[in-house]
């Protein structure tokens, strides 16, 4: 148990020290990453990119039937 705790503590310290002593460019790209992920997942995905089949149909069966209709339509 002590070994595991020590390992977790070492890993935490490794990342903590890494982020703490990060250079200016490192800090800047992390800001960009966080802004990018925020825009992608909390704005674009939610408001602009809903999954068409998941939003419009309740089950896989309904989704399959819809696509079957699309594939065979006007035949």
């Amino acid at each position, binding site marked *: 148990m002590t070994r595991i705790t020590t390992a977790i503590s070492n890993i935490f310290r490794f990342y903590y020290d890494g982020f703490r002593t990060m250079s200016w460019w490192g800090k800047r790209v992390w800001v*960009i990453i966080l802004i990018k992920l925020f825009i*992608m997942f909390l704005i674009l995905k939610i408001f602009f990119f809903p999954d068409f089949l998941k939003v419009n149909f309740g089950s896989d069966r309904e989704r*399959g039937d819809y696509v079957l209709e699309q594939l*065979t339509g006007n035949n």
Partner: protein
Amino acid sequence: MIENIDLSLVNWSRAQFALTAVYHWLFVPLTLGLSFILAFMETIYVRTGDEVWKKITKFWMTLFGINFAIGVATGIILEFEFGTNWSNYSWFVGDIFGAPLAVEGILAFFLESTFVAVMFFGWNKVGKKFHLTSTWLVAVGANLSALWILVANSWMENPVGMVFNPDTARNEMASFREVVLNPVAVDKFLHTVTSGFVLASIFVLGISAWFLIRKREEHLARKSILVAGIFGLVASVAVALTGDSSARTLAQVQPVKFAAMEALYEGKSDAGLTVIGALTDSGERLGEKKVHDVKLRIEIPRLLSIMTTGKGSGYVPGLKDLVNGNPEKGILSVSEMMERGKYARQVLTDYKMAKEIGDTETMEALSARFKESDFTDNYFRYFGYGYFEHPWQVVPSVPVIFYSFRVMVGLGFFFILLFILALWFYRREALERNRWFLWLALLSIPLAYLASELGWIVTEMGRQPWIIQNLMPVGVAVSNISAGAVQTTFWLFAVLFTALLVAEISIMVKQIKTGPKH
């Protein structure tokens, strides 16, 4: 039918996907290649103990980090688009696409959260060998990550290893091995990653040349040019060889794309490969498509026949053969494929109708047909042709593919020459004296990106009108959403990606100007 589809929706959906993919691909190849260059440099440092190599490695690692961080997750937007804009396609491909992408996701997660962190945070905290191992694992992992994406993409070019389930309207994986060892996937993976190695080598070469032009960091620049020159030369020869192998496979599985790349309308034996040429309108038409003449042609005699058939006298089918058919050469006409595709669609329609009225006996009988080799090999494999009204609709834009291919190949051979010159001048200690070469190397950086993007344009534009070769045209793949919504998100992406690119370039330029830490 294709005529009933909202072309504006299809075109905006395609434009949006193209925009996203083109921007995404600005970040990826540098990661693929620079990761290996870092691994080589750090290996030299660990083996020699020379601190200069550590400084060199850390400098290029900084640029790798900027590119990696800004590019990370830009590919996920493509997956958003699958679900929103291309829902019929996403459903139809089923787990064929999902399985490789899941493997890629898991690989990328572990790679990014562990070994990249060791690479950047681990200097002087972990042992030299452990750090080096992490750098190598990042390189191998990043390239393996690309493998899974390319496997999924290759399935769209050559769908294999699946069975279509009419009940769920999805393809189900029958053989993971067939999907992974798809000949298109093997060729594409090797060609794509080696082209990434070339791009990264030119990036290192060009920036090192800039240092020499400015008479700064000359030791770092010369050593970097040596590594980039050797790696780039080997990689650019590999790109040429894998490109040749790709073309051979392409001639078998996508003969229309192959003929379009050569603007070859009339099939012939002893076919030469066009090195340079200009397309002009011949006045003739293939359906509603223009037929082009190739003027100012410089060609290598018989090479096209050798590339496709292994024999100089081999017959290479032209677009007219492929559209109108050529029974003598065993080439089915598109009209015949359309008939077979319509029949396959009719079987699926009958299944759907039986399902609607609960006729389980008919459903079972029709479902069994999708597992019979006679039906799958002779009818279902042409399923997508059933959506077309005219045979000429299977012909892509010949000029776009013809010119993109030629510029890409021309640049590929130019890069081989560039690396040879770099190594030649390095060996003669004449890099600084030949400033024209240094400027040429610097100005070649955008050319490397251009060649890389053109490769994808040939691949994806050449595949048109298919999203899945022979099975699903792009027009059938789109979701039933408004073109205006896609147009809005197109511009949102254009702004977002341009901002990311500007951020990347500005941070990178600042870091290059700062140079390595002394």
